[in-house]
């Protein structure tokens, strides 16, 4: 009788805590990003990157002798699912830190829940507003959309000398926001924005719009939108013979963009991205090799960011005086750490003081880094 009860409760424990039983002094950290659905490629790569770092840490004996257990949950890029995930992490008192979420729209409603339960949070989402909402539980190592909109504006006005731009955006928080940032910086650089057009986020036919943009005769088209709209727009733009320089944000930084546009039409398109290419430093090359060895595939677009975010979280846990949420939270904002992607230190809002941004150009069917 007694033995069955023990067995049953052991089994129950196994079921509730996933595959690995959590020992008393294990450090449990949560992670969340879309791992299914259209953005799974991006989300899964972040989770893989973080997992890789924690595995490495455990091989060396964990944090101060305690093993790290990383528990990823799928938020499907859906704000409703994101809040459920947040609640789940909050309710599990073993979880003392969360890396997530990937999408700004998912992160925004979840912030409130994490903050309620004092959960230390490392955020990979990029909307500038997120860090200005007054939550004290969050830090963001990655560059925000102010940086992302500013970099290409500076590049085209100063380096390419292009002065006449048209903006297209999909009316979402992200798309309209980043197009606005580009506009401000483009005008500050002496350029003129001769038109700004909104579309519906699900539109696939831009031909009529492009024909009217052609009348403005712009030399730059900046588009704040998602995929596949970025690819469809550029494809239709080239079909109509509109030769203007095309610029898009991070969502377009995927090989799908080039295959959907066609390598010839995509040639010369500019795309901003928060991360350097995997062959740009010996550390990143080494990371790429280890990723290949661990998962049997090359690192996805956001893998190095997942790795760096895990480094930030681990650094805060390492310095914590007590292994609970309050202990980690006390250290989170003061963390300074040399990550895979460079040094990280946070300002009073929780933004990284030196977050880099990279500009890529499509060349011969591949994204190539533009050296600044």
């Amino acid at each position, binding site marked *: 009788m007694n033995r069955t009860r023990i067995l049953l409760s052991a089994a129950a424990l196994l079921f509730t805590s996933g595959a690995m039983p959590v020992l008393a002094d294990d450090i449990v950290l949560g992670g969340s990003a879309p791992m*299914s*659905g*259209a953005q*799974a*490629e991006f989300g899964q790569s972040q989770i893989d990157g973080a997992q890789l770092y924690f595995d490495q840490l455990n091989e060396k004996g964990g944090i101060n002798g305690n093993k790290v257990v990383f528990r990823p949950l799928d938020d499907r890029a859906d704000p409703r699912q994101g809040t459920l995930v947040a609640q789940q992490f909050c309710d599990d008192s073993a979880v003392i830190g969360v890396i997530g979420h990937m999408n700004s729209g998912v992160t925004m409603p979840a912030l409130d829940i994490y903050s309620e339960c004092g959960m230390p949070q490392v955020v990979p989402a990029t909307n500038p507003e997120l860090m200005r909402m007054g939550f004290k539980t969050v830090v963001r190592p990655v560059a925000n959309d102010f940086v992302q909109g500013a970099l290409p504006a500076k590049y085209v006005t100063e380096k390419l000398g292009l002065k006449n731009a048209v903006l297209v955006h999909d*009316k979402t928080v992200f798309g309209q926001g980043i197009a606005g940032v580009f506009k401000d910086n483009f005008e500050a650089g002496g350029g003129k924005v001769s038109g700004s*057009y*909104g*579309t*519906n986020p*699900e539109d*696939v*036919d831009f*031909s*009529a*719009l492009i*024909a*009217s943009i052609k*009348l403005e005769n712009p030399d730059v088209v900046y588009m704040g939108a998602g*995929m*596949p709209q970025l*690819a*469809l727009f550029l*494809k*239709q733009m080239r*079909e*109509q*013979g509109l030769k203007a320089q095309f610029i898009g944000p991070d969502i377009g930084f995927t090989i*799908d963009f080039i*295959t*959907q*546009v*066609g390598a010839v039409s995509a040639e010369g398109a500019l795309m901003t991205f928060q991360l350097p290419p995997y062959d740009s430093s010996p550390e990143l090359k080494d990371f790429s090799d280890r990723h290949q060895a661990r998962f049997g595939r090359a690192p996805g677009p956001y893998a190095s960011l997942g790795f760096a975010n895990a480094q930030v979280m681990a650094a805060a846990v390492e310095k914590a005086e007590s292994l609970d949420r309050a202990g980690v939270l006390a250290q989170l904002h003061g963390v300074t750490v040399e990550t895979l992607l460079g040094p990280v230190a946070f300002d009073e809002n929780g933004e990284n003081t030196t977050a880099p941004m990279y500009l890529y150009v499509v060349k011969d069917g591949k994204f190539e880094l533009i050296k600044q």
Partner: protein
Amino acid sequence: MLDYFLQQLIFALAIGAIYGLIALGYTMVYGVMRLINFAHGEFFMLGPYVYTFIFSGLIGLGGLAPMLDSAIAIIASFVIVGLLGVAIERFAYRPLRAYGRLAPMLSALGMSIVLQSAVRVTVGPQPVHFPAIVPSTPIDALGGMVTTVQFGILVAAVLLMVGLTLFVNGTRLGIWIRAASESWTTSSLLGIRVNRAVSLVFFIGPGLGAMAGIMYASYYGIMQPTMGSVIGLKAFTAAILGGIGSIPGAMLGGFLLGAIETFGTAFLPILSFGYIGTEYRDVFAFAVLILVLLFKPAGLLGETVSEETTVAKKDY
């Protein structure tokens, strides 16, 4: 300005042709069965997926001449999607026929979810690149620019529409369809096998939808499991606009909706001095629909309302 107008007209014709082809499926099914087939958008979505499956299969087996491979794959997708339509009618709609109008309609909604999810689970939810069947080369025409793909869409769609009109008006099978849509009971009393007419309609409608899907995918270069939802709604609108149940009406409605959308996008910002942006395109298209329904409820080419159709319209 004339160049600009002509250019927009070309876009309007290309997208209008696609709307028209899909609208035909809605209108034929409604004509015969008084059923709005909400799964019709999914046949449109299945077209390019089936095409890609067959085409890459043929290439995998060594392939024949490139154009021949495409032709076989196109015909095969028409037949496969058409047969799927017949099967769905047989097993998901026909058993519910005795239970009023609402039951088959809900079944259609359910089928739509099933088909979409099936593709999402088996192929994946992300948009997939669809290589154009003919290479897209721009041709200068009357000051505007036509790509070979747009031209191909227009020619193929018009051929299919002419073919359908000849078939419905000039063959024995066409007579079945027309008789069944005029009066179900009278035609069955006169010895017409109404169920055969229904199966025929459920073969041709989804088949044409699949053709439209292939055109659409090669026009925009992508296909995705959700592509049928919005376009299905638009084509349904086109069918209503032209007068649901009327075959020429569906064609007219398609071209008209394409024109309204395209010219709305092109001229609204200019006419309103930038106050109304291109994002109001759908609002504009649906506003025109509301106006047509207010002043001509049967649609532009809608059949003269007989006693039986009046009853049918009241049911909705």
